C-alpha cells in the first residue's frame, strides 16, 4: 500500500535537509576555501564552490616539515595506541568471561568501579610526571591502555558466543591461551573492529595531552596540536617563502588546508564508523 506524498512529507523532508546542511556545510566551506585560488579577489565570503581552483596552499602545507612530522606522530599514536589497548583489553575480557575464575567477583568490582572514579587533572598530571612519561611519545598511548568500557563491550560479545566450542577444545587438552587465540579471538572480529576504529578516532582527535605533557617537545606535537597553534596562537607566516616558489596562499587559506588534511583520515573511515555506530554495537554497552 503506497500512500500519497503529503504536504507534511515535503516539509519534513525539507527540515531534515536543512539539518543535514548545518551538519555538512561548515566543513564543505572550509574545503572550498582551501581549494580556492587566493590570487582571485573576493574576500572570505560564503562559498558554495571553490573560487577558481588552486592546490597551492596544500603544496605549502605538505612542504612544511612541521606539519608532515605532526601528521606522522598522529598516525603513530592512532596505530600504536589502539593496538596496545586491544591486546590488553581482549585478554582481560576473555579472562573476565570465565565465571569460575577464583576471585572473579573482586576483579570485576575492581575494574568496573574504576569507570566511576577519576582523581582529576592534577593528580593525573603529577603521576605522569613521577612515572617520567612527560616529554615522551608514550604519554599518548599508555594511560589509555586498559579501557574498561571496551573490556565490558568485548566481554559482553564473548559471552554471546556458543560455550560448546570452548568446552570441547578444553576437553581436548587445549590451554586457555590456545582457546583465546585460536577460537575466541577470530570470532570477535566484529566487536574488535568497532572498538579499534573508535579508539583510532579518539587518538587521532586528541591534542590536550600534547599541551599538558609535551608542551616543550615540538618534535612530539600531533597534527591536531599544530593546527590548534595555527588557529589560537599564531598563524604561520609562510606567505613570503610560498611566493618565492610561485605559490599563492594566505595564512587563512593555509589554516583551512591543514584543517582539511586533519579531517581527511576521519573522512576515510567514516563509512565504517557510522556503520558500527548506527548498528548500535557501541551503544549497546551503555544500556548493559
Amino acid at each position, binding site marked *: 500500500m503506497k500512500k500519497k506524498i503529503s504536504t507534511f512529507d515535503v516539509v519534513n523532508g525539507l527540515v531534515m535537509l536543512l539539518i543535514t546542511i548545518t551538519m*555538512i556545510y561548515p566543513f564543505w566551506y572550509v574545503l572550498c576555501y582551501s581549494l580556492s585560488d587566493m590570487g582571485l579577489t573576493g574576500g572570505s565570503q560564503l562559498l558554495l564552490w571553490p573560487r577558481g581552483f588552486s592546490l597551492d596552499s596544500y603544496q605549502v602545507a605538505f612542504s612544511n616539515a612541521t606539519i608532515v612530522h605532526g601528521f606522522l606522530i598522529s598516525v603513530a599514536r592512532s596505530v600504536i595506541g589502539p593496538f596496545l589497548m586491544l591486546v590488553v583489553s581482549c585478554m582481560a575480557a576473555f579472562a573476565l568471561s570465565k565465571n569460575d575464575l577464583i576471585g572473579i567477583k573482586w576483579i570485576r568490582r575492581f575494574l568496573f568501579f574504576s569507570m566511576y572514579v577519576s582523581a582529576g587533572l592534577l593528580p593525573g598530571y603529577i603521576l605522569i610526571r613521577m612515572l617520567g612519561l612527560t616529554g615522551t611519545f608514550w604519554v599518548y598511548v599508555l594511560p589509555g591502555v586498559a579501557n574498561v568500557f571496551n573490556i565490558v563491550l568485548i566481554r559482553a560479545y564473548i559471552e554471546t558466543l556458543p560455550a560448546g566450542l570452548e568446552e570441547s577444545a578444553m576437553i581436548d587438552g587445549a590451554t586457555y591461551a590456545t582457546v583465546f587465540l585460536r577460537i575466541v579471538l577470530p570470532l570477535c572480529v566484529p566487536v574488535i573492529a568497532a572498538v579499534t576504529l573508535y579508539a583510532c578516532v579518539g587518538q587521532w582527535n586528541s591534542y590536550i595531552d600534547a599541551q599538558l605533557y609535551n608542551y616543550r617537545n615540538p618534535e612530539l606535537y600531533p597534527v591536531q596540536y599544530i593546527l590548534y597553534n595555527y588557529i589560537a596562537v599564531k598563524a604561520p607566516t609562510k606567505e613570503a617563502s610560498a611566493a618565492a616558489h610561485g605559490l599563492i596562499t594566505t595564512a587563512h587559506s593555509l589554516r583551512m588546508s591543514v584543517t582539511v588534511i586533519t579531517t581527511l583520515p576521519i573522512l576515510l573511515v567514516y563509512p565504517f564508523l557510522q556503520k558500527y555506530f548506527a548498528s548500535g554495537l557501541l551503544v549497546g554497552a551503555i544500556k548493559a
Partner: protein
Amino acid sequence: MTQGVQVAGRRGTLQKMVRQRQLYMMLLPALASVAIFTYAPLFGWWMAFSDYKLGKPIFDAPWAGLKYFIEFFTDTAGAGHVILNTVVMNVSALVLGLVCALAFAIFLKEVRWKWFRRFVQSASFFPYFMSWVIIYAVIYALFSNDGAVNASLQSLGLIDKSINILGNPKTSWGLIITVDVWNILGYNSVMFIAAIAGIPDEQYEAARIDGATRFHEMWHVTLPNLIPTMIVLLILGSGSIFNSYLDQFFIFTNTLNISTMEVFDYYIYRFGLKLGNFSYATAVGVIKTLISLVLLVGVNWLSRKATDQSLF
C-alpha cells in the same frame, strides 16, 4: 573431619588457581594499568589538604586542613562565576541536546524515503567524530571577525561592523550550548532511533484502527515509548553536569570571554598548571568530583522513586 575437608577445599582452590594461571596472566596488564592510572592518582588528593609545591615529594607537604576548600567558597574571585557558567552551559546543553535529538528521531522516522533517512542519519553524526580543534577551526572560519558570515553580511549591507561571537562575554553561553547541541545531535539520536526500532508495529496498527493521524501516532505512540530512554540518558548526563571537556574549553576560552566561558575543568587547569597552585586546584577538583557523585546518586534515587527507571 571438618578440618580435613577444609584443607582439601583450600588445596582444591589453590590447584584451580594454578590451573587458571594463564587467565590471571591475561588479566594482569589490565589490572596493573587500572591500578596505576586510575587508582594511584587518588593519593594525589592529599595535595588538596596540604601545601604542596611541584617537584617536592607529595607526602612531605605540610598539612593545611580544609584551607583550600574554604578558599574556593569564600574567595569572591573564585566560585561564583565558575559554578554558574558550568551549570548553565551543561544543563542547557544536556536538556536541549536530548530534546532536540528526541524530536529529530521522531521526525526522522516519518521520512518516507529510506535512502534519504539513512543519508540524514549518517550526516547527523559527522560533527561528533571531529576533534574540538577541527570544530573550532570550522567555526572560526565561519564566525570570526573576518570569517565568512561576517564578510557576507557586510557585503550585503546588513551590518556595518563585524560581529564577534568567539570573544564576547555576552555570547559565550549561547555559542557553547548551540555548538554542543549541534555536535551531539547524531550521537544522542542513535539511542532514540534504536528505541523507535523496538516499538512493536501492533501499536501503530491499533492507533490507525482508532483513526489516528500521523501526528497522533507521533504524539501518542512514538513519544511515550521514548520516555524511558530519555530518563536514562538524563540520569547518565546529570552525573556529569560539573564536568566539561578540557579539549573543548581550552580552545573556546580566551582572555575576552573568560568571565562567562570559564568552567570548572578550565579553572582547575588554569590555577593548577598555569598559576602553579596545585593544592588549591586539586581541592576544587575534589569538590567537583564529590558534587558530581552526590548528584548522580541523588538523581538516580529520585528517578527510582518517581518513575521506576534507574541505573543502579
